[in-house]
């Protein structure tokens, strides 16, 4: 009989609302192996792992665990098959103790009464085994550091005797000293024959901990390689894989004078003494790792969070931006990072979403909305943005992610904002819609708007920005002009390497 992989996913297909997320993807991982799953945002890594864990149901394909065909149709099926996923957002009950969280799905071991001594002993045994015996099992989880919370989450997975552990960007929430601890745990688990699937964007990590790498692109397999046979450059090429000029349409914007100047901005721990300026017709990229304080900086500029100190000058005049209402009245608009939470009113008609920021211009005395004018404005925006909609009276939830993002964008085009902040504008958007969003950004810049674009995606930052500001731990690490923008420089600055 042929050798059996621990995890074998064959010919997996999955689409959401007609948009293919995975097309005939194959994936194998072995016991005692750390297998990286890589690809750009939207490449289908998370979708593939959610199918493995049973959080999504697949449209087509077969899953075998240890050679045995499994029907995984719910997260319970996934757990029973020995698969645990450590998501970025932990699934912990903060008010319960460490021991309770670790053994949450088997508190009484079948008995109606909990034997606390036994429970705590069991939990301690697992923590000891991981080398974290010093964590008090009676401590409430909310009092632990993020890194220790992650340890609890891993322990929970181990208490279920999981043979496959999926880490979804585990280091995104960790400080660098904590990362080393995590890598140690991963080594331990690997030594015990656990199959580890590791999703991450950070190349250095991949080369430090992973044995094999599978690269996905646009929902398809690119290749599976052994880590030691490949260089970082080759890996990046595999991931990006497409011609950058094709992705990023050319822009003919004339860069003019400074429109907004931010000086010595401070806001809590996340924003420390940040200064920058943006010009007419310019796209200023803001790059850095997750948690570098990019979103916080721009939220403070926009008045969404209260700043501690710092001055903002618009067209030469100092302004006090105390609320987002004030920001909008001064001509600043923002497209937030989390579309469903902050960007769109998901359960409201497209009409309401599109004119939310410009109702004042569309209404007369007594706040009476001029429907005819509103319809005209919406019609223009739908054409301009090429939004695919049935009717503007349908809820925003009926749209695909890309079209939702365009609707969220539309509300700023209808208003008269000259400075636009885009926070991860193409997150969770398919490639076609991405290019269209880039076109819209270009068009806005060509019309003289100043664009500030926060993005974690290297190709996007490189392809779109006239200038890039790189942040790390709340500070500006450096500024790169058009001819200096390269992946290497960006990584160096965001990792805190001093000299370029």
């Amino acid at each position: 009989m042929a050798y059996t992989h621990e995890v074998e996913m064959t010919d997996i297909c999955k689409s959401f609302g007609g948009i293919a997320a995975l097309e005939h993807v194959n994936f194998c991982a072995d016991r005692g192996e750390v297998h990286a799953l890589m690809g750009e945002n939207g490449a289908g890594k998370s979708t593939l792992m959610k199918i493995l864990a049973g959080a999504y149901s697949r449209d087509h394909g077969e899953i075998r665990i240890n050679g045995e065909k499994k029907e995984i149709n719910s997260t319970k099926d996934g757990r029973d098959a020995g698969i645990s996923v450590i998501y970025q957002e932990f699934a912990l009950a903060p008010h319960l103790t460490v021991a309770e969280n670790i053994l949450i799905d088997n508190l009484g071991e079948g008995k109606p009464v909990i034997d606390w001594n036994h429970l705590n002993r069991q939990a301690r045994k697992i923590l000891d085994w991981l080398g974290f015996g010093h964590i008090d099992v009676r401590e409430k989880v909310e009092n632990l550091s993020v890194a220790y919370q992650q340890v609890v989450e891993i322990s929970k997975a181990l208490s279920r005797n999981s043979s496959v552990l999926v880490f979804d960007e585990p280091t995104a929430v960790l400080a660098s000293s904590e990362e080393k601890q995590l890598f140690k745990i991963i080594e331990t688990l690997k030594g015990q024959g656990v199959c580890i699937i590791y999703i991450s964007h950070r190349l250095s990590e991949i080369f430090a901990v992973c044995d094999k790498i599978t690269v996905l692109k646009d929902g398809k397999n690119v290749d599976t390689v052994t880590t030691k046979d490949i260089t970082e450059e080759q890996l990046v090429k595999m991931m990006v894989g497409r011609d950058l000029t094709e992705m990023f349409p050319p822009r003919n914007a004339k860069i003019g004078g400074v429109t907004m100047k931010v000086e010595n901005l401070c806001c809590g721990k996340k924003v420390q003494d940040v200064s920058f300026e943006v010009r007419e017709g310019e796209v200023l990229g803001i790059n850095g790792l997750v948690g570098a304080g990019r979103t916080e900086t721009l939220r403070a500029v926009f008045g969404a969070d209260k700043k501690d100190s710092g001055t903002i000058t618009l067209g030469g005049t100092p302004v006090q931006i105390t609320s987002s209402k004030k920001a909008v009245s001064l001509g600043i608009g923002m497209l937030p990072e989390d579309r469903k939470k902050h960007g769109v009113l998901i359960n409201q008609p497209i009409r309401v979403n599109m004119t939310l920021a410009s109702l004042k211009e569309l209404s007369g005395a007594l706040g009476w909305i001029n429907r005819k004018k509103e319809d005209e404005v919406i019609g223009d925006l739908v054409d301009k943005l090429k939004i695919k909609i049935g009717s503007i009276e349908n809820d925003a939830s009926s749209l695909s992610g890309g079209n939702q993002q365009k609707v969220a964008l539309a509300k700023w085009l209808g208003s008269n904002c000259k400075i636009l902040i885009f926070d991860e504008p193409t997150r969770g958007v398919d490639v076609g819609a991405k290019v269209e969003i880039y076109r819209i950004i270009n068009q806005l810049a060509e019309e003289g708007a100043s664009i500030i674009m926060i993005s974690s995606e290297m190709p996007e930052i490189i392809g779109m920005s006239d200038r890039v500001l790189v942040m790390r731990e709340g500070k500006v690490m450096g500024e790169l002009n058009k001819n200096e923008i390269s992946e290497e420089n960006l990584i160096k600055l965001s990792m805190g390497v001093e000299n370029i």
Partner: protein
Amino acid sequence: MNTTGNTEMMEIKKKMTVKEFLIRYNAILILAALIIISAILSPVFLSTQNIFNLLRQNTPIMLIAMGMLLVVLTGGIDLSVGSIAAVAGMMISVSIVSWNWTTGFGIFMGVALTLIVGLALGAVNGAFIAFLRMPAFIVTLAMMTIGRGIAYLVTNGQPIRWPEGTGAQALLDFGSKGVGVVPWPVILGVAVLVVFWLLSKYTVFGRLVIATGSNQDAVTLAGINAKKYKFAVYAISGLMCALAGIVMTCRSGTGTPISGEGYELDAIAACVIGGASLSGGRGSVGGTIIGVLILALITNIMNLLSVPAYPQQIVKGIIILASVFVQSVSTKNQD
């Protein structure tokens, strides 16, 4: 073979649409069913007198439900409506009886003062909820108790009877007379409904109230002061309660501190039966009107049949449960 296949297909399609129809228009169907049942069970039901009586009796709750709808649209709740209505009833009575404000101008002042008191109590709710970010349930629960306390305190729990034949007669006439067969309170009620319908459908205020309830963060980030709208709906709710309190007292001619008890639950039930979501962002004036009428009809039909009060409550509860159940099924279908 082919034909049977087709008929089967058509039947399935038809079944689906019937189901969808039932889900979408469940409230109006329940109302229609209640009207038909009422008409069959009691010959008196469809008489002009009974119908206008029914409408007049339910004008106060209709007014309160409109204020409640705005609150519910923002994702809030107002438990203090019944108490504020009672305070208003006492306020207008005190102005007439104790202060002897019985001239035409006096009556006008009394009504204005009462409306201002309602508005102010509602504004207190709104300020705590919108600006101090306290939970609406708790704030309005406190106001419910405080308001009831004030209503009792005014006369130490005694009802105040309006004298007949004085200037207050105008108000009493408003409560008992009308234009032809249409009672004055009903005319007032219809006017208010039209205002609320226009408000919710065609104005920036209505649109932003709904948007705030749907996603306050997104509205704030669109450069809109969402708190202002949250505050305003409670103030308006207070105003509507005061108006309802005045209408109630005009009808009975007596200010009683116990009036309006339980109105908060009827008003919330009316909104919910009419399709409003308590988590905000969803609800309509039309639906709420139907909700009020359904609750009113249940009471009316059972009164006509001399069903005692206690079983009435059970039936009311079952209908609320059933309509919300149908809605939860329909939202699941959407997902």
